[in-house]
């Protein structure tokens, strides 16, 4: 099913104006015989007086439920069931969505996922229902469904599935408890993905929930998969942006930079707000990670190249200010623009940029000196007292950013060489796994290249441009020498 089916929501229950007889004729025969089914009584608890038409519609739902139970066995049966459900989808289910909830208890989310999904979907599509059931069991039901549903079945109706997940997310956000949505959504992401390389709209939402709940590690499991297939642009941008924020929260700046780089260099014909925000963070994280912002690679879209800097002027200025190497200048610049950074929610990152300047200057010193007194460090890095210098150096040693020893008696710091000898077994394993990974990647690349070379469109295009005759191909000695 194409994921792009638009649907008009009907939030009111339509009074049944149809002849009562029509629902049964849309079913196959034997609809009334539902051996295991005990017909539910009228949904009087929903607050609407059941009319005869409604009762009849209820029965048809029962019939549907019976079908679901009966036909959820093999793939053929599922296909048949799917057809039935598609027919039923629309007025029948929607009109009586309020009454669907109790039916759900008759169905097993794992075995009858497809049917369950349809019923659940039409139930939650009505905001009246949601309001009536705010909090409480509905969340649990949905969460339960998401964790236990069968992947094959729900893949037959992906847009409904996505809708249900969205609703869950909205509910969870309304309740201000994003953490409740994390486990179910993570399960949902895995189920709807056709391969671990595919990006779904759920990725972005899942990451957003992780960010709001500050559960960064939970986001990692999804982020670690490499994404190669993307269907919708907005998914990608949001995924990259939220993913980068999670990595920033975990201080894994290199991976954050990769994601932001993808967001900034993705092909685009017009600028969007997500890319602008992503670029702002890109500038900041590049400064923290490597001290400079790389220029746009040539595959960046021309829209991005031309317009991004105009929208992010203070960040560009910040990076030039950083380049001068003066801490006090940078500090004054940040102070004067503090408001702008605050409104962008980037002030925390900006402060990290500021402290990274010290780190970079101290690292430069390790290249030049073997030992250096703390006063000299303080003066060359523009710190105020040797004590502060000592603190900075200590922190950097603990973080593993430099290798040094502090001699407090003399007030001296000795910089040591990187003790890594590349001889340990862990290192060998690391190198070996890298090689394996790269060989796999390289194989993938070759296969894609081969596919493209055999592609009809490609051959047409490249064949047209080649010279018709290449004498060198035929004769090794040109004619004139005969």
């Amino acid at each position, binding site marked *: 099913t194409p994921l792009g089916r638009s649907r008009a929501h009907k939030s009111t229950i339509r009074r049944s104006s149809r002849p009562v007889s029509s629902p049964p004729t849309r079913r196959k025969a034997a609809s009334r015989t539902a051996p295991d089914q005990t017909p539910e009584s009228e949904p009087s608890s929903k607050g609407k007086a059941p009319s005869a038409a409604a009762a009849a519609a209820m029965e048809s739902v029962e019939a549907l439920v019976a079908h679901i139970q009966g036909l959820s066995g093999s793939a053929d049966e599922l296909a048949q069931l799917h057809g039935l459900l598609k027919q039923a989808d629309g007025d029948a289910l929607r009109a009586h969505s309020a009454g669907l909830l109790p039916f759900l208890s008759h169905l097993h989310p794992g075995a009858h996922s497809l049917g369950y999904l349809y019923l659940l979907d039409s139930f939650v599509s009505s905001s009246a229902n949601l309001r009536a059931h705010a909090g409480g069991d509905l969340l649990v039901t949905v969460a339960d469904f998401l964790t236990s549903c069968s992947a094959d079945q729900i893949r037959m109706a992906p*847009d409904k599935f996505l809708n249900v997940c969205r609703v869950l997310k909205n509910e969870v956000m309304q309740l201000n408890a994003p953490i409740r949505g994390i486990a179910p959504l993570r399960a949902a992401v895995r189920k709807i993905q056709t391969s671990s390389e595919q990006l779904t709209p759920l990725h972005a939402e899942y990451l957003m929930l992780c960010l709001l709940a500050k559960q960064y590690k939970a986001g990692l499991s999804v982020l670690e998969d490499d994404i190669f297939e993307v269907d919708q642009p907005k998914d990608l941008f949001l995924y990259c942006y939220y993913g980068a924020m999670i990595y920033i929260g975990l201080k894994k700046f290199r991976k954050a930079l990769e994601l932001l*780089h993808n967001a900034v*260099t993705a*092909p685009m014909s017009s600028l969007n707000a997500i890319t602008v925000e992503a670029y702002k963070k890109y500038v900041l994280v590049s400064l923290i990670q490597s001290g400079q912002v790389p220029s746009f690679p040539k595959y960046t879209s021309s829209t991005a190249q031309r317009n991004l800097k105009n929208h992010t002027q203070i960040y560009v200025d910040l990076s030039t200010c950083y380049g001068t190497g003066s801490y006090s200048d940078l500090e004054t610049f940040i102070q004067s623009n503090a408001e702008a950074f605050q409104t962008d929610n980037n002030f925390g990152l900006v402060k990290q940029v500021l402290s990274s300047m010290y780190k970079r200057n101290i690292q430069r010193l390790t290249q030049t000196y*073997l030992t250096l007194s703390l006063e000299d460090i303080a003066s060359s890095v523009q710190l105020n007292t040797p004590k502060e210098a000592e603190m900075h150096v200590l922190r950097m040693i603990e973080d593993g950013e430099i290798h040094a020893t502090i001699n407090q008696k003399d007030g001296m710091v000795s910089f040591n060489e990187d003790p890594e000898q590349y001889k340990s077994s862990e290192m060998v394993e690391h190198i070996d796994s890298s090689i394996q990974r790269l060989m796999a*990647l390289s194989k993938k690349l070759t296969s894609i290249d081969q596919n493209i070379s055999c592609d009809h469109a490609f051959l047409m295009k490249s064949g047209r441009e080649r010279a018709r005759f290449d004498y060198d191909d035929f004769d090794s000695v040109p004619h004139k020498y005969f």
Partner: protein
Amino acid sequence: VSADQLDVEAYAAQYSGRTRVARLLFIAERCGVEAIQLEALRMAHDEARAREDTVLYLDAVLKINSRLGPRYRHDQAWVDSVNRRAEQRKEKLETELNGYRTNLIKESIRMGYNDIGDFFYAHGHLSEAFKSYIRTRDYCTTSKHIVQMCMHVILVSIELGQFAHVTNYVSKAEQTPDTLDAVIVAKLRAAAGLANLETKKYKLAARKFLETGPELGSNYSEVIAPQDVAVYGALCALASFDRSELKSKVIDNINFRNFLELVPEVRELVNDFYASRYGSCLEHLEKLKPNLLLDIHLREHLGTLYNDIRHKAIIQYTLPFISVDLNTMASAFKSSVSMLEKELAALITENKIQARIDSHNKILYARHADQRNATFQRALQTGNEFERDIKAMLLRANLIKHDFNQKNWPGQRKMNL
């Protein structure tokens, strides 16, 4: 700039022609000592008046500013009479030239243009002189004519400061099929050297100056004196040659030795550098500095050249050792330990010295990068970069395959957030 040792007359005696006046004026401008300034201006004035060069005369008078008495005041009458005479001569020359042009005699036309060029040059109208000389090109028949034209153009270009032309015409002159007179060859080399010096190509300049034959003598005094060739050549060589080149091209160069004899200080300087007596070498340099700052061609480049020489000295000093005591080094270079430390830190950052400073004990340790570790590091890094780039590329390829077009956004899907 204290140049109290400068003997202005002796200095000016080395040069002739316009460059004498120009140099005197330059000295007057840059020198801080009033006595020398006035002396230089007085000589400049006399010279300009004798040559009937009104442009330079006016310049000199302006700078004198009535400080030298009534004889050196602005004499507008003289200026006017000179200009009138010049105007008459110019008309005469031009009519002659037109006559020649109608007669279409190549040789006469060429000589006509030359004469006009000389005339303009003598009166300080340099760009017209340049144009006239260039015009003779079409009428040159023998290579001698071409060489003559080139020499004229080179002269004017040097004064105009257009050194690109100088280089052009030097190569043109050198390409003539006839063998050239040795003096002319020497002149061309010197001119080429000068052009390279002014365009900051110190290594090439050094080479050219070193190739200048001793036949130059004082034959090119309207441009450059042989002492200048020695000084420029030696300084550029010190700043840009490595040790072996220095030995083969400067110290063992017999031809150049003639020049060096004229400036014994510079000869000492070069020998000191080669023998690693850096202290005395740098001392000599400092002594020469004030006089050299008054040289019209060398002034802007002196700072860079001196820095380069000093850095070269420091690098050469540290090269043979595994560890160097900074105190000894500081006394050898006659500077303080802290200043030396800063210089060394700068050189290390620029990767010109492979060493590390032990600031506590004030020792410089040579450091040889561990190739094995470096290779591992580089390999791992390359692997990471490859992985990152390939993944990004595959993603982008996929995006393009799905026809990633943002224009489709709004209507695409209704189940938005």
